[in-house]
């Protein structure tokens, strides 16, 4: 009986990223782009128009040489829950193109539904959303590597990290044909988590005490980005550096983080 019920229990997929381990190598960014058919242009140096579902930011402590310190911070979509799923972007979407699924905790983006008003981009405090200003163009022959599990986007729509939802679907399908309803922790992992050579990213169900993220998010060094906005995000960060934790929530210079 319990087994039959468990697939219906509410999941809350989330990430814990250990910034002490992240070396800023950029593997997660490329893994994401390769997995999710993210296009590229000859010039990608205008970072406002450069589509990167996962982006590694470089934070500095602002001190002069040689006290300067740097921390690399990978930023996927934070999959905000807000209050009862009213994440900033979902609340403003007039097209029902973006949505919060309370069964998985994943903020979805349906490209064919989106008409490109970009309200969600204005609403997102994390710059996690990107607009397709141009048609995606792959040089002749390169469209061969496109992943059939993710639909390429078209000009005029917004896109963002999906926590590799198609991998969740694939994992469920695999389980279904084996007569299972539940999937194990390792069966559904995002492309960035899998690729990270430093093992800095951990992904799983934040509701499930057996998953690694469940314990990691309770680490005393854990924090979330702009927590005081009430976005209630599902991406946790761990840093042993005080200045990084403060930078994570725009604390005033003399203010102390709660932890």
């Amino acid at each position: 009986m319990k087994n039959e019920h468990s697939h219906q229990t509410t999941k809350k997929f989330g990430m814990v990223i250990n910034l002490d381990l992240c070396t800023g190598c950029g593997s997660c960014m490329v893994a994401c782009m390769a997995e999710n058919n993210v296009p590229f242009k000859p010039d990608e140096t205008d970072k406002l128009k450069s589509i990167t579902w996962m982006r590694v930011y470089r934070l500095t402590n602002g001190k002069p040489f040689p006290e300067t310190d740097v921390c690399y911070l990978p930023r996927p979509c934070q999959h905000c829950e807000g209050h009862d799923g009213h994440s900033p972007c979902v609340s403003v979407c007039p097209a029902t193109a973006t949505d919060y699924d309370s069964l998985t905790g994943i903020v979805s983006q349906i490209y064919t539904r989106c008409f490109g008003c970009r309200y969600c981009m204005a609403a997102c405090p994390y710059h996690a959303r990107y607009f397709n200003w141009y048609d995606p163009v792959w040089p002749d022959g390169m469209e061969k590597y496109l992943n059939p599990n993710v639909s390429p986007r078209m000009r005029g729509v917004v896109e963002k990290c999906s926590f590799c939802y198609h991998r969740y679907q694939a994992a469920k399908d695999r389980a279904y044909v084996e007569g299972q309803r539940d999937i194990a922790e390792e069966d559904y992992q995002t492309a960035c988590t899998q690729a990270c050579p430093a093992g800095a990213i951990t992904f799983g169900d934040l509701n499930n005490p057996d998953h690694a993220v469940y314990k990691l998010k309770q680490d005393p060094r854990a924090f979330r980005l702009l927590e005081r906005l009430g976005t209630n995000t599902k991406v946790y960060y761990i840093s042993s550096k005080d200045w990084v934790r403060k930078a994570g929530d725009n604390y005033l210079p003399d203010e102390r983080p709660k932890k």
Partner: protein
Amino acid sequence: MSEHEHMDAAVADAPHEAEEHGSGGMVFLFFLIGLAASLIVGWVIFPKLLYSQKNQPIDFNHVLHNGLVSDGCASCHFFREDGTFSGSPTLAQCIDCHSDVQGESEEEKRFVEEYVKKGIEVPWLIYARQPNCVFFSHAAHVKIAKMECVTCHGDMGETEHLRPYQYNRITGYSRDIWGHNIAGIKHHTWERMKMDDCAECHQQKKDMLGSVQTQKEGCFVCHK
């Protein structure tokens, strides 16, 4: 406008007024002609213009094959180990029996010569192909919900010939998505496969309605 011109206009209108009653029938007739013509355009010519059709590369007899296999549809349309659905068979499967011509059918002979011998996959036209933005899990519907193939695919297994593949000239979709009836009216579950048709069942799954925006199922359940 001058006063003079005004007067002219009034005079010119007078005879028309007189004939008004006489032309009433004519006006109505024209209305009917317009109505009839446009109804014909809308119901008969428009669908013909909207859809184009292609024949399948070779014909296929489902009835015949169904009689030869042991596991029904799943004999050829099976689940792969990774949970994906194989869809229409590849040459590798057909080759088991058709490495050489088996029967007397011209189509089979053509199949063996043009595809099997040359090692070229048959470019089947998929009637039920959903657009690229749709994620459809056969595993969830067949293995978990225990749905029958006919529910969505109709009596495909009982056909002796493949019907022409019709596709929408504007969208490129197979006609089966909208359904054969141009008004979108369906009598059976398999006659239309638009999003609303999926939703008919999906809305009944009370424990799966996770969407915050729509109070229905999450968008990602069926979209990619």
